[in-house]
């Protein structure tokens, strides 16, 4: 098992033969477009004039005071148009697909943020858009389902397996195998076969590139620690990449511990999985003793995924990043604290990163800075939070 597109021993392209030529075509188009200043200028135009970049770096003033330790700074991807970092990647990939002459766009979605982002960009270009979404996620992310409809996309419910992101991804890949001639598959995270993890990283690294520049401008220094939640791992890779060479900057990824690692009901692939192949890549995977992929649980649909991007597996092996976990309950408490103290309603995914940032800020103590990727806003999660917290309840 050796080929291009590896991160250490991880990655690769384990796909049906039908897709191999399409992946080769995508890789060639990616390399060509990324080397073309006109493409980069077009992408930047959309990122800055449409998506609302650059996003601010915000000091979480009261949260910092409450923790009594390091300063907690938020990279505000919740302010990107459509409410999450996902648009950075959707814009890049759809622009690339247009360049490749593809007329039909498909995507998978868990929380619905990637689906909404993809539907949004397709609306901008009048492209046909089909989004696969597990029935369970359709239930818990009803707002985003409705939004995708408004934007002109077709949401196809997926009833197989656990009816969540993993199964939606299977169906999207099956669609792509069938319609590969005219269709581009906009994968939503740094997962999937080569070249996707590299492609998505390229489109998400704008998060960290901006944050690093902003840090140097504002503080004349780099953060001590950078924290991001890890579903597939795209917002984390997005904010980590610019800091990879800065050896003194600690990089921390946060996986979903769900109801607790010990209960088995979680989505912490790096913490509790072992390497295997899912969706075309070799990486850490939650699986049983026979290599069947396990069902996962997280209160946040966007983290409810049994795999993880191959670069995270490699960063962990190389000890360049470390990975910790956060339970549903801890994430919820941080969700409420950010609402009450900073006037920001965060996505439940991002709340996992916040919980760990609070922990680390206390450990580091005053005089240090923790940078958190606030990957998205929480409007989509209001129903979930209302259901578990009870009406009118604040800091549960």
């Amino acid at each position, binding site marked *: *098992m*050796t*080929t291009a597109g590896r991160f250490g021993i991880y990655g*690769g*392209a*384990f*796909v*049906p*033969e*039908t*897709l*191999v*030529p*399409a992946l080769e075509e995508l890789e060639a188009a990616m390399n060509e477009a990324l080397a073309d200043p006109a493409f980069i200028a077009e992408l930047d135009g959309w990122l800055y004039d449409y998506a609302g970049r650059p996003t601010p770096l915000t000091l979480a003033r009261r949260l910092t005071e409450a923790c009594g330790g390091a300063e907690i700074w938020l990279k505000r991807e919740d302010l990107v148009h459509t409410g999450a970092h996902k648009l950075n990647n959707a814009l890049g990939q759809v622009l690339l697909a247009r360049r490749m002459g593809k007329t039909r766009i498909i995507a998978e979605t868990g929380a619905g943020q990637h689906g909404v982002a993809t539907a949004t960009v397709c609306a901008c270009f009048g492209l046909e858009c089909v989004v696969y979404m597990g029935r369970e996620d359709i239930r818990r992310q009803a707002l985003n389902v409705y939004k995708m409809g408004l934007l002109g996309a077709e949401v196809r419910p997926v009833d*197989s*397996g656990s009816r969540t992101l*993993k199964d939606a991804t*299977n169906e999207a*890949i*099956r669609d792509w*195998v*069938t*319609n*590969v*001639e005219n269709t581009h598959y906009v994968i939503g995270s740094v997962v999937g076969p080569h070249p996707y993890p590299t492609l998505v990283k390229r489109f998400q690294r704008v998060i960290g590139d901006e944050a690093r520049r902003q840090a140097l401008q504002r503080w004349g220094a780099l953060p001590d620690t950078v924290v991001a939640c890890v579903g597939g791992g795209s917002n984390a890779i997005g904010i980590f990449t610019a800091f990879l060479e800065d050896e003194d900057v600690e990089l921390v990824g946060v996986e979903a511990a769900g109801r607790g690692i010990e209960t088995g009901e979680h989505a912490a692939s790096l913490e509790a999985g072992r*390497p*295997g*192949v*899912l*969706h*075309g890549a070799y990486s850490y*995977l939650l*699986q049983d*003793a*026979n*290599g*069947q*992929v396990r069902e996962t649980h997280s209160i946040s649909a966007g983290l409810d995924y049994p795999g993880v991007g191959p670069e995270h597996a490699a960063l962990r092996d190389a000890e360049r990043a470390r990975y910790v976990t956060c339970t549903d309950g801890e994430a919820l408490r941080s969700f409420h604290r950010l609402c009450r103290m900073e006037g920001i309603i965060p996505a439940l995914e991002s709340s996992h990163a916040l919980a760990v940032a609070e922990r680390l800020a206390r450990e580091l103590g005053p005089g240090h800075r923790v940078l958190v990727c606030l990957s998205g806003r929480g409007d989509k999660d209001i129903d979930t939070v209302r259901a578990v917290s009870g009406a009118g309840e604040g800091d549960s």
Partner: protein
Amino acid sequence: MTAATAGRFEAAFAAGAAGGRPGIIPYVTAGFPGPDDTAPLLLACQRAGSLAAEVGIPFSDPLADGPTIQSAGWRALEQGMTPARAISEVARARDAGLTIPVAAMTYINPVLTMGIEAFAGACAAAGIDGVIVPDLPVEEAAGLAASLGAHGVAHIPLVAPTTPTSRVARVAATAAGFIYCVSVTGTTGARESVSPAALDLLERVRSVTALPRALGFGISRPEHVEALTGHCEAVVVGSALLDAIASGGDDPGAIAERFVRELRGVGAAG
């Protein structure tokens, strides 16, 4: 029990060569419809005159499969089917007199979990003659192909209508037993007709290799087999057979036997 020999495929294809009409390779999911049905189904396929048989080792996330094989696999998994148990079903069938070649089809993750070397050894010991892994393109296949080869088990790669001819040649160079030709750009599942792209692929395969060609994905009816006379040496029929078994009575073996005979274009006695 007879150990695996890549030669079993060679002999079977050589015997079929004169006939014209492609030989039938029925596909059954191990553990479907019930945990103990697989060995009897393989023997029924043999009685019906199948050229070979294919046994699917179910995986939770079968990317290359359509709804029929997906649901057969999940049903088998729910009833406790495992890779080791699937392999032992073939050994059981061999002990009961199965002599036709058998290929196992599965995905790479269960193989990695068992360990490539252990998997190859277990296949050989059980009398599995070839292995098909649809999510293992030639770039990733060297390790498995080498282990299988060392145990005398054929690595049977797939080519698709989207595969350029130069790549078909590269894939064929790693193949043993036969080359699996995917008839459609799509997943497994019964279809109405054989696409022109399939005939084109079969021609292109013949232009670069002398290996026997089995056409699979979508083949479901006797007319399809008839129409493929002279175009390929075998057809793999999976979803249509599983559909027949699923909607038929409580004797899967009898259903399979009748189904294969119909595909062969012979009567009940043939």
